[in-house]
C-alpha cells in the first residue's frame, strides 16, 4: 500500500507535490516560502525563529515548521510579509493545517496551508484603485 522508505518520511512524488505548492505560492504572492518537517531542537517557537532568520531574505519569507513527533505546527512571517499577511490569517492557516494533520494527512495539510497563506498574502494593499 504505502511505500515506506527507511529514513525518509515522504515519497518522491509527495516531495514533488510539496515543492510544487511552494513554487505556486511564491509565484502567487511574490513572497518566499519554505516548509521544515522534522523534530525541533528545544522549544518550537525559538527554533522556528532561528530557522527563519537563516533564510536568505527573512523579511520577505514565510517559514512553516511541522513537527510530527511533537505535533506542533509553527508559522513565522517576516516583517515585510506581515504587512499583507496578518497574524489572524496565519492563525487560520495553522488551524486548517492542524485539522488535516489530525486526520493523518501530512502532505495535504502542508499543501493546503501553504496555499492558504499565499492566498491571503497576495491581496493588494489598495483594493480599489481610483
Amino acid at each position, binding site marked *: 500500500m504505502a511505500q515506506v522508505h527507511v529514513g525518509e518520511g515522504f515519497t518522491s512524488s509527495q516531495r514533488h507535490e510539496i515543492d510544487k505548492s511552494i513554487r505556486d505560492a511564491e509565484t502567487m504572492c511574490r513572497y518566499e516560502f519554505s516548509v521544515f518537517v*522534522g523534530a525541533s531542537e528545544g522549544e518550537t517557537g525559538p527554533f522556528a525563529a532561528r*530557522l527563519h532568520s*537563516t533564510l536568505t531574505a527573512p*523579511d520577505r519569507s514565510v517559514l512553516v515548521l511541522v513537527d510530527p513527533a511533537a*505535533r506542533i505546527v509553527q508559522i513565522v*512571517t517576516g*516583517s515585510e510579509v*506581515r504587512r499583507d499577511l496578518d497574524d489572524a490569517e496565519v*492563525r487560520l492557516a495553522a488551524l486548517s493545517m492542524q485539522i488535516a494533520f489530525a*486526520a493523518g494527512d501530512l502532505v495535504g495539510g502542508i499543501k493546503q496551508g501553504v496555499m492558504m497563506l499565499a492566498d491571503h498574502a497576495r491581496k493588494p494593499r489598495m483594493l480599489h484603485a481610483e
Partner: protein
Amino acid sequence: MMGILGGVITDQKAPTVRRLTRAVALIPAILLCAMATPAIAAPPEGWPQAEPVSTLHALLILVAIPLGLFALITLLVHVPSMARHEEYTPGLAWHHQNEWFGGPSGGVEAADKPDPKAIEAVEEGHTGGASARW
C-alpha cells in the same frame, strides 16, 4: 433548601419501602407493553395469506446487507487516504530525517549559526506568525 430535599426519601428505614417504590415505578412500563398484545393476534381472515419467510431470506436482509453497507462505507472513507500513500498516523513516532522544503542550501546546520541581526528582529517582535497543535 433542606425542606425541598426533605421530600426525597434519601434514607430508607425499611428496604421494603424501596422495593415497593420500584414495583410501583414499573407499573406504567408494564401497562404500556401490555397494550401491545393485539400484535400477537392472527391477521384478519380477509387478508391474503402471506408466504412464510425463509430463514435464508431473513438472514440476507437483516444481516448481510447492513454488514455490507458498513464495509462499503468504511472502504469509501479510507480508500482516498490509502491511495495517497498515507504513512502518518498522529501519535506514532516520526523518526524520519528532517526535511526543509525551499530551505537554504546550508540546511538545518545553518540554523546553528544564526544571523544576529535577524535574531534581533525576532526579539523586537518584528516577525509574526502563529502555531497550532494537534
